[in-house]
């Protein structure tokens, strides 16, 4: 799997969420943000899941920060992202890019993708400022590169 292409494909998939406000989606961790903003970063890479580098698992984080405060509007926006299904669901948006069995996922950048969990509510520091948000774990499997 190409990590650069995977980041971009994941950004594009997550950006398909529909909420009441405009959200900025980035493929890399920014120096500073104008929330709401989502960004992608690798967490762990587990090589050699199959012989001949036939399978690698890459765990990515998709982090969404919604506000510098935890007012109700910010919480409601975050709840929309946290839903397991629906137009605002980050999980649903990413997993919509899976493809059918036997097809590649995330614009052909990996074999399959799964969003098993999210950590919320949490405070994330970006550029020295803390923001309310959530972090999704995204498992991507594919051939080694």
């Amino acid at each position, binding site marked *: 799997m190409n990590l650069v292409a995977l980041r971009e494909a994941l950004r594009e998939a997550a950006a398909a969420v529909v909420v009441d406000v405009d959200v900025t989606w980035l493929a890399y961790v920014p120096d500073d943000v104008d929330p709401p903003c989502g960004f992608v970063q690798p967490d762990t890479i587990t090589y050699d*899941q*199959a*012989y*001949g*580098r*036939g*399978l690698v698992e890459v765990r990515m984080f998709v982090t969404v920060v919604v506000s510098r405060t935890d007012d109700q509007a910010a919480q409601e926006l975050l709840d929309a992202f946290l839903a397991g299904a629906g137009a605002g669901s980050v999980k649903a948006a990413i997993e919509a890019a899976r493809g059918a*069995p036997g097809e590649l996922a995330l614009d052909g950048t990996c074999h*399959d993708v799964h969003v098993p969990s999210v950590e919320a509510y949490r405070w994330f520091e970006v550029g020295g400022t803390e923001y309310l948000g959530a972090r999704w774990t995204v498992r991507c499997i594919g*051939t080694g590169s």
Partner: protein
Amino acid sequence: MPKLVLTNVRAFAGAVDLTGVTNKVEVEASVDAVDVTSFASAGWTELLGGLAETSISAAGFFDPGTNLVTDEDPALFAALGAVGPWSVAPAGAADLALAYLTNALEASYKPIQGAVGDAAKFEAEMKGNTRLARGAVLHPPGTARTANGTGSAIQLGAVPAGKRLFANLHVLSVAGTTPSLTARIESDDSAGFASPTTVLTFNAATAVGGQHASVAGPITDNWFRAAWAISGSSPSFLFLVTAGIA
């Protein structure tokens, strides 16, 4: 000799290269311990080696694929109950790499295993239809051939009476118009192969697939190599040849 961490076990079943989907391969040869203890055994158990058997198990990640012959799931599902060649090279399938080979019945296939969220896995169990041979790769799988040729020579040793030279041919890819590959094993008494002798010949292969062949000893020559004749219009073959003595 250094120990080995398994990262690149190459397993081939018929026309299928299972390398990229397997994460566990076991090759086993066992012999029944037949008890022949008698009162004259001085208080100790006496054993004779009885019937021997071979088994191979492979496990890894389910690949639904589309090609019925070269993709994991359709190929292993179709091969259930059938006998076919298996070759396993523990540290890659480069020219003259160590390889174990046999002809085996696919006795069990579990195409789908796993809990929610797991990557789908498969398991296959094979029972040997003949001996397990320890030998080598005589032609590597990644080198395309378009014309007649010979492979590298390896000193496997002479084949004594009572033993056999076993060989597998795995044809992995075929291209061209009316392509045909006839592979064979040659022997000689020196690495230079000044006077090669053909000791076994596979059937002509015009499509992907696998073949197993053997010839009985004694064979006094102790050097062996693969050789092949290719015909057709713009033919191209990817194939693996393994051979060993058992």
